[in-house]
């Protein structure tokens, strides 16, 4: 595969439980503190110990939107990780392997690539330096720093922060381990021959001492951004049942709950989770739940309940490949059609699909506003790639989060209303909410079709049924107007227009960097349901050829567009391996 020369990729492979993800993330943050940009991707099996776990991180001087396939430097903590990943090594790559545990023969290296193989006997190094075995990851990261001429003080600053609560002894031991790994690699390999370095800034601190690194960037996943976005949106209630790859949403919300003031509840199942979120929304607070496809299947009836009772609820769904248990720790975009049609009966489903952490951060408050203003369920659709992939971004904008709760009556307003109607037939389709506890607002929030007060009707009153169903659909044009618009990237005059949504964004933007501007442009959707047909027509008006890109088998979003616009695609790039698109493979396909 061709490679983008501005990008360096490190891969750490080993068994589950060896801490490569923590080590990798430490390196990622050190890079970000040094002014570099990173994007990472981790593969792991559905087990806690053993097996194969890899962590890869691509680093560059400009923003990096996806992890690259080609590996320049690899740390192998198990033989299996070498065997599995050796074909990803590019010409001139360097491999360190834990020679105290296993051996790699020169003959096992890919031919004609001039790959350098260096033993890194971790147990021996630990023993000789009188360190503790727990520091092996710090030693490995030290070796990486040596190869890259990387400012070691940035790693030290990470150790001081990570182990702040563990005390000076632990900090000093890890700083020593980094230095030990750095020195070992310097003496026993040949960093000068390695053609990559990672020049960080600032080289020195203002006072002339060693740089401790600026903290102007955050290294963050979309899941973490959803939690931050929900706090910024004033969400005070989350009920969720753990499911990979959505679980970290629940973990972060729970970890911060007492400080953020959010009540975070893990109930007995996903059915309870969505009904709790609905109960809290009905009572008058902003509420959400999160899950993956299998859990969302259990929530389906609840989404319909929210729709008919017109209770706002936000659901973050992070996709993994299905059907059934599918590939539990891998990624894909296979739930779109299910979600866009979830629940029985006719009702409006809003689905927002951020393409990265930054978009997750600002689309989350957007989702809450749409849910409350239009009194509908809103899904934030993520997938493993962005839910677990850390991206370094210039600091997220946290101020000016606008909160729009729509039509909510105050007690004072309610006092002036003689005959409050929760489901009043209004011109814009939106009826005012009153919350339990308010005087004069008593009504039925009814899962049966109902009249303006909420009393159950039967189809003997067909006229009211039509009026209520039509009223709810009156919201649709206003909703469509308020959805985030698809974004156009690249030159208008390009030969091919690529259409995608959600997480494919990163790899496409990386591929665009490497290809001439006239090859293709890109329309990225963050609102995938309902479809704003007029807006799409405008955007594709000048397009010569339409290509679709999605991480699923059938081109689900393409079919949704076809349904709404009757358009055909000239080509479809579809991947459903559970692994994300890499920039290199797109460059091959699009060049």
């Amino acid at each position: 595969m061709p490679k983008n020369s501005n990008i360096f990729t490190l891969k750490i492979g080993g068994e589950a439980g060896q801490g490569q993800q923590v080590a990798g993330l430490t390196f990622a943050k050190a890079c970000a503190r040094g002014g570099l940009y990173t994007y990472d991707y981790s593969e792991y099996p559905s087990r806690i110990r053993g097996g194969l776990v890899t962590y890869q991180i691509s680093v560059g001087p400009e923003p990096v939107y996806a992890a690259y396939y080609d590996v320049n430097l690899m740390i192998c903590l198990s033989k299996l990780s070498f065997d599995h990943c050796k074909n990803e090594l590019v010409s001139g790559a360097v491999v360190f392997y834990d020679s105290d545990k296993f051996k790699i023969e020169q003959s096992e290296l890919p031919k004609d690539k001039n790959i350098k193989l260096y033993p890194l006997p971790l147990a021996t190094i630990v023993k000789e330096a009188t360190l503790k075995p727990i520091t092996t990851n710090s030693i490995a990261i030290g070796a990486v720093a040596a190869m890259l001429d990387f400012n070691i003080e940035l790693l030290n600053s990470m150790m001081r922060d990570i182990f702040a609560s563990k005390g000076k002894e632990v900090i000093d031991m890890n700083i020593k381990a980094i230095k030990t790994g750095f020195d070992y690699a310097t003496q026993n390999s040949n960093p000068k021959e390695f053609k990559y370095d990672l020049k960080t800034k600032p080289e020195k601190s203002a006072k002339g001492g060693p740089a401790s690194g600026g903290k102007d960037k955050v290294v963050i996943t979309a899941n973490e951004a959803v939690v931050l976005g929900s706090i910024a949106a004033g969400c005070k209630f989350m009920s969720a049942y753990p499911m990979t790859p959505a679980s970290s949403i629940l973990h972060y919300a729970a970890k911060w709950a007492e400080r953020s003031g959010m009540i975070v509840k893990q109930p007995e199942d996903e059915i309870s989770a969505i009904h709790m979120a609905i109960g809290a929304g009905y009572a008058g607070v902003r509420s959400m739940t999160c899950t993956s496809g299998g859990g969302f299947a259990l929530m389906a009836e609840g989404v319909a309940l929210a729709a008919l009772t017109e209770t706002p609820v936000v659901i973050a769904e992070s996709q993994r490949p299905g059907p059934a248990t599918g590939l539990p720790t891998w990624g894909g975009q296979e739930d779109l059609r299910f979600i866009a049609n979830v629940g029985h009966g006719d009702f409006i489903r809003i689905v927002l699909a951020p393409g990265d952490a930054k978009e997750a951060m600002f689309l989350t408050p957007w989702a809450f506003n749409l849910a409350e203003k239009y009194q509908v369920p809103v899904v934030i659709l993520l997938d493993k790639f962005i839910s677990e992939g850390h991206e370094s971004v210039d600091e997220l904008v946290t101020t000016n989060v606008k909160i729009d709760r729509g039509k909510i009556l105050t007690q004072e307003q309610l006092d002036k209303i003689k005959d409050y109607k929760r489901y009043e037939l209004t011109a814009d389709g939106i009826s005012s909410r009153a919350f339990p506890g308010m005087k004069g607002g008593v009504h039925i929030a009814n899962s049966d079709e109902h009249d303006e007060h909420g009393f159950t009707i039967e189809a003997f009153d067909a006229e009211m049924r039509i009026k209520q169903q039509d009223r709810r659909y009156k919201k649709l044009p206003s909703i469509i107007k308020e959805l985030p618009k698809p974004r156009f990237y690249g030159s208008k005059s390009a030969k091919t227009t690529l259409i995608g949504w959600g997480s494919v964004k990163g790899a496409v933007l990386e591929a665009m960097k490497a290809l001439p501007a006239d090859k293709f442009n890109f329309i990225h959707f963050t609102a995938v349901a309902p479809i704003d047909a007029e807006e799409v027509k405008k955007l594709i008006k000048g397009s010569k050829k339409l290509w679709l890109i999605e991480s699923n088998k059938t081109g689900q979003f393409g079919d949704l567009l076809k349904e709404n616009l009757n358009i055909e695609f000239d080509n479809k790039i579809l991947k459903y391996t559970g692994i994300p698109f890499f920039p290199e493979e797109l460059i091959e396909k699009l060049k």
Partner: protein
Amino acid sequence: MAKPQDFNTHVTPTWCPGCGNFGLWQGFKESLSELGLEPHQIAMVFDIGCCGNGVNWHNLYGFHSLHGRTVPVAEAIKMANHNLKVIAASGDGGGYGEGGNHFLHGCRMNFDITLLIHNNQIYGLTTGQASPTTDTGMETKTTPSGQLEQPFHPLQVAIPQGASFVARTFAGDIKHCKEIFKQAIEHKGFSLVDVLQPCITWNKVNTFQWYKERIYKLEDENWNTKDKDAALIKAGEWGEKIPIGVLYVGDQSSYESQLPQIKDKSLVEQGVTSGDISEFLEEFK
């Protein structure tokens, strides 16, 4: 102060004439009135079925949920606004069957909510199928040769599962219903009231007469509601003699009373304002 009839709406109940639900309903309204509650202070979550249809003639904040889904909705209402009296009402099918998992875990979560089960040992609105509490051997539409399963014993499940108030009453005794409901609503924790409530249309076995011949009141025997082990055994008494009254009262704290987030004010009173995330962002640097 609200009178029992203030909890009526303009809707006439659709229950069959003579349904056990009428006595239960009267006792319920009287309990609300005697507790000094106003309609707007109560949020009540209804299941689907004959009990659930009652949402239309209860003048209070009614939430008509889906089948089996009363408890989680009620629990969340309590977390969001603990100033409300929160009640869930369901039949034996929704409460113990479709919502069985919520019941099981609702007991041990111990939110300050009251769960009223209209237990008639049969499915009413779906026209006479076996329910979780149908006695072994009973012939129903779905068990024409007799029910093969053992019946579910809700009280015997609720006590070890952590419910802090466990009681049974009988719809044929309005005064008893009222007294039990009052105690259940006042209790600070998960209160289960299993109401024996004859279905005169579909259950020709467990009739008013059948119950009257069997029930006896625990309060007449100076029952010690603090003795958990004895309560568990008593809860299994079924057949020739059936106890009604309060079986067990525990003193464990309710879930929401332990939440620091709502120590000073309910979530609803706190309102919706943008939270400051700057301190959390530090973790990602």
